[in-house]
């Protein structure tokens, strides 16, 4: 799950991590007002207007603008809210922008990178820091791997003061800024664990030039990116509320409501499989025999007959689909329940496209019998004996 920049800023701020003053607005008129508020608070005339979309390449597309007056802020917001943003990440159709962020401009003396993520090999969360911030960390990893510092975080006691302090010195913070950076790192770790993050990334983390209030500069989080562990979402209603359904594929959302794991792809052969590994393997087999899967779909082990029927509705709602392959190896999943879902879907929507079904495992015999009994309602049904047989039949059927 992705969240918007303004939501990430709110999350950081709620854990006491300093961010520049900002407001999110939905109209050009509000942008005018927001400009006055945020610049007044920060004592500057510089602000930045940024489109809130889940795609990179905003700057190049003209959807991040520096402004020095309320009129400029209003014009920038007007442009972003009435034009589609097109960048390398959005595809040619572009994205509508419904919200823009108006943030106070800050002077930057230095840009850093700071993140926490899970390291599968060591089974630890790890803090990743670099004094070369503001660019993609992968580019730094490629060009200057020594510039990246990794610090493992103990699962039971968290990031320790001494670890954070050492990182702050290594990154080159001086004087009072060392304390600010240390505190910020500790808070980022607290946030990461409290909200079941999979990735918490501040880039850039900045140090401002010295001022009267901050003789060693001020440490601020300018932009942040979060990913959350889907398995942990159930205990975070606040994180769930960050979700913007408008940003997600409607068929994937529907599938999620039915408890199905579904990912839309570009091919023409719909797949319904139980188990993620077998679902991937089924896609691989279809491709091996010259077909193109239209989706990844794992119905899971505990899906009800209704969920199976919904799975067929979702697959059939894709106009590209002109054949379906069902591959079930029942462990938890009862093959008779899959058969019941097929028959119910046949009655409700009807299969006009070829349908190839392979059932094996738990209660497979009864599942096959149920399908045979409903043969009249399943004119396009072909039974398959194994994985290869099923893939070959469906690829041949779609032509």
């Amino acid at each position, binding site marked *: 799950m992705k969240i918007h920049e303004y939501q990430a800023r709110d999350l950081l701020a709620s854990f006491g991590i300093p961010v520049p003053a900002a407001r999110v607005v939905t109209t050009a008129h509000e942008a005018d007002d927001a400009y006055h508020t945020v610049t007044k608070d920060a004592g500057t005339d510089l602000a930045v207007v940024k489109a809130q979309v889940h795609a990179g390449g905003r700057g190049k597309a003209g959807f991040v603008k520096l402004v020095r007056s309320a009129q400029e802020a209003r014009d920038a917001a007007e442009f972003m809210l009435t034009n589609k943003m097109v960048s390398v990440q959005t595809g040619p159709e572009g994205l509508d922008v419904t919200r823009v962020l108006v943030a106070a401009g800050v002077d930057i003396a230095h840009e850093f990178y700071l993140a926490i993520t899970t390291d599968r090999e060591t089974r630890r969360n790890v803090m990743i820091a670099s004094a070369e911030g503001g660019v993609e960390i992968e580019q730094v990893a490629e060009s200057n791997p020594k510039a990246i510092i990794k610090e493992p975080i103990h699962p*039971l006691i968290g990031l320790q003061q001494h670890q954070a302090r050492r990182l702050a010195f290594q990154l080159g913070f001086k004087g009072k800024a060392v304390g600010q950076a240390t505190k910020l790192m500790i808070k980022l770790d607290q946030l990461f664990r409290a909200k079941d993050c999979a990735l918490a990334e501040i880039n850039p983390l900045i140090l401002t030039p010295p001022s009267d209030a901050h003789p060693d500069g001020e440490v601020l989080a300018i932009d942040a990116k979060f990913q959350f562990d889907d398995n942990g979402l159930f205990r975070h209603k606040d994180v769930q509320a960050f979700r913007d359904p408008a940003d997600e594929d409607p068929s994937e959302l529907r599938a999620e409501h039915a408890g199905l794991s579904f990912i839309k792809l570009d091919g023409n052969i719909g797949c319904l499989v139980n188990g993620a590994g077998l679902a991937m393997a089924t896609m691989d087999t279809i*491709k091996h025999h010259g077909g193109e899967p239209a989706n*990844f779909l794992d119905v899971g082990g505990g899906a009800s007959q209704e969920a199976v029927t919904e799975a067929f509705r979702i697959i059939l709602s894709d106009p590209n689909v002109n054949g379906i392959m069902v591959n079930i190896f029942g462990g938890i999943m009862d093959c008779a329940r899959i058969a019941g879902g097929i028959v119910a879907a046949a009655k409700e929507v009807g299969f006009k496209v070829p349908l190839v079904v392979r059932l094996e*495992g738990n209660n497979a015999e009864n599942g096959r019998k149920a399908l045979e009994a409903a043969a009249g309602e399943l004119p396009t049904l072909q039974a398959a004996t194994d994985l290869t047989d099923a893939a070959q039949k469906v690829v041949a059927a779609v032509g």
Partner: protein
Amino acid sequence: MAILIDKDTKVICQGITGSFGAVHTKGCLEYGSKVVGGVTPGKGGTEDANGLPIFDTVKQAVDATGATATMIFVPPAFAADAILEAAAAEIRLICCITEGVPVNDMIAVRARLDEINLSASGAHATSQPNLITLVGPNCPGVITPGPKTGGGSGDGDPYTNAGCKIGIMPGYIHTHRSDPACTTGKTVGIVSRSGTLTYEAVWQTSNLGIAQSTCVGIGGDPVRGLNHIDCLRLFEADPDTDGILMIGEIGGTDEEAAADFVKRHVTKPVAGFIAGRTAPPGKRMGHAGAIISSSGGKATGTADSKIEAMREAGITVAETPADMGKAMAKALGL
């Protein structure tokens, strides 16, 4: 022999009164596993539908039954605690079937289990008899097939008099070396990150007349108990295992590490398969661990990098999932 479990392993079920726990306790009993009781806090003193005693705590269950293994079916929010309760009660083999356990919970669980095992042995080994072995979470469990006797009460699942199934896999697809169906006389160990893909592999080997010593579903989560290497080490040391079939999927670097281990330490024939060759980068394929990272233009955890590492280690790699059994047969020289 086989690994991890055998006909004498006494098993309890944590979450025995839940719908999945109840169904699969019955399934395991029908297969012939020595399921000796279950745990549901608050229902201690009662019996389940099979007449098995239910206890409030794992400790009580262990004291009363002598169980050394558990299968966990509790909801994801309680799975971490269930694993640690089993460990505290000195259960040796913990199979966590539950899907959807938060990664941070598993990080803490692994840290605690490593700590217990370290103080018990002075080593970080995860699969010695005196240590606690975790399988899963998000896995089908472990099965050591036994000879079929046909005396079972189940719906088509054969009763075995020397087998043990701890988990949710269909029993009938497995073959014991004494079965007439084991026409090759060969027995292989199977280890896999994916549940249903394991069944597919088992079924294919059985249909080719190859028996299985033990099949371990290690689960699809990024932080878990046993990994491929742990199972390879156990199978290499097991005299009943003639070859090893290793099934991986996209995401992480486990299979690369396992391939390296095979190159250096495994003398038995190894075949393998990696699922997700056609998965697009950046999309999570159902399992929390199954994702190709695509940041910065360089893809990591891809099927191709894993297949390459396996080939390089001399592992016979199946081109498609329909060829897993054939690849195993080829590796065995059949």
